[in-house]
């Protein structure tokens, strides 16, 4: 959401709530149906892997646990950034945003590594219905994380150059909401896709 307010967020609106935050929450509510559809597709097809390895053969739970932990910690650094932004502490805001972006990149890196490993084990995108739906679901999540990383880095740059066009704390908070949502989706994927045996 790029349209930002000049006055304090929520100033002069009917409910006293910020338009931007309201819009962001609606977007996240909408995203529930996007990821819901992808997760359901995976659930329907996870057992269909004739002619290729199945979930039990390829999943590397220790590795995925580590990357889940990384993403979880990035949520912590994100809230620290939000708190710093609220305290008008630019230095710490930028610091924690950068750390969040780094942790996010680490997660995406882990995913790239995981996908490569799967591919070497004979699990390509078109190998089976299981592989197509798995790569589609986790790929969509990965793209969401990557977009988040890009937004975080852009925000750091914009804050550094003093070019923010609206309320700074709110901008950080909005990206934070998006970021936590992506984390929350991973909490669900990690359990439903990786941990619960098919």
């Amino acid at each position, binding site marked *: 959401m790029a349209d930002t307010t000049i006055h304090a967020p*929520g100033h*002069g*609106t*009917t*409910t*006293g*709530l910020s338009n931007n*935050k*309201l819009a962001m*929450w*609606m977007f*996240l*509510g*909408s*995203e*529930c*149906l996007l*990821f*819901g*559809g992808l*997760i*359901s597709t995976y*659930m*329907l097809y996870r057992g269909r892997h004739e002619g290729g390895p199945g979930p039990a053969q390829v999943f590397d*739970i*220790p590795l995925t*646990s580590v990357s*889940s*932990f990384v993403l*979880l*910690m990035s*949520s*912590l650094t*994100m*809230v*620290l950034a939000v*708190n710093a932004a*609220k305290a008008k502490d630019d230095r710490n805001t930028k610091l924690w945003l950068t750390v969040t972006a780094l942790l996010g990149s680490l997660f995406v890196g882990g995913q790239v590594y995981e996908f490569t490993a799967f591919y070497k084990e004979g699990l390509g995108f078109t190998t089976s219905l299981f592989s197509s739906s798995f790569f589609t679901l986790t790929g969509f999540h990965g793209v969401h994380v990557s977009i988040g990383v890009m937004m975080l880095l852009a925000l750091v740059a914009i804050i550094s150059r003093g070019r923010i066009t609206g309320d700074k704390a709110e901008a950080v908070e909005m990206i*934070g*909401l998006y970021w*936590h*949502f992506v*984390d*929350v989706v991973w*909490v*669900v994927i*990690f*359990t*439903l896709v990786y*941990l*619960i*045996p098919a």
Partner: protein
Amino acid sequence: MSEHAEHAEHAEAHDHPTNSYFIWTALVLALFTALETSTYWIDFGSFATPLLLILMTIKFFVILLVFMHLKYDSKLFGAMFYIGLGLALGVYTAALCTFQFFVK
């Protein structure tokens, strides 16, 4: 825009959690994640699936309520999200039911 007397009071409460509160929350979440992961090494038998689902739900709402501070924010924000979440759960569960997903 003119001042709206009707809704002059700002809905945003400012009892925002402190850093240490967030760090403790993250620790709890990490603990839960460790517990989840342990099902890979320890055999919980038929308890594994319900346990994992419960842990997942708790983590989900802790992040939502604390990190996304839905607990401290306007109910309207929550409503927007929960409508989407509820609809998603409803329609996709029903669709999976028609595929006999839960009885197979």
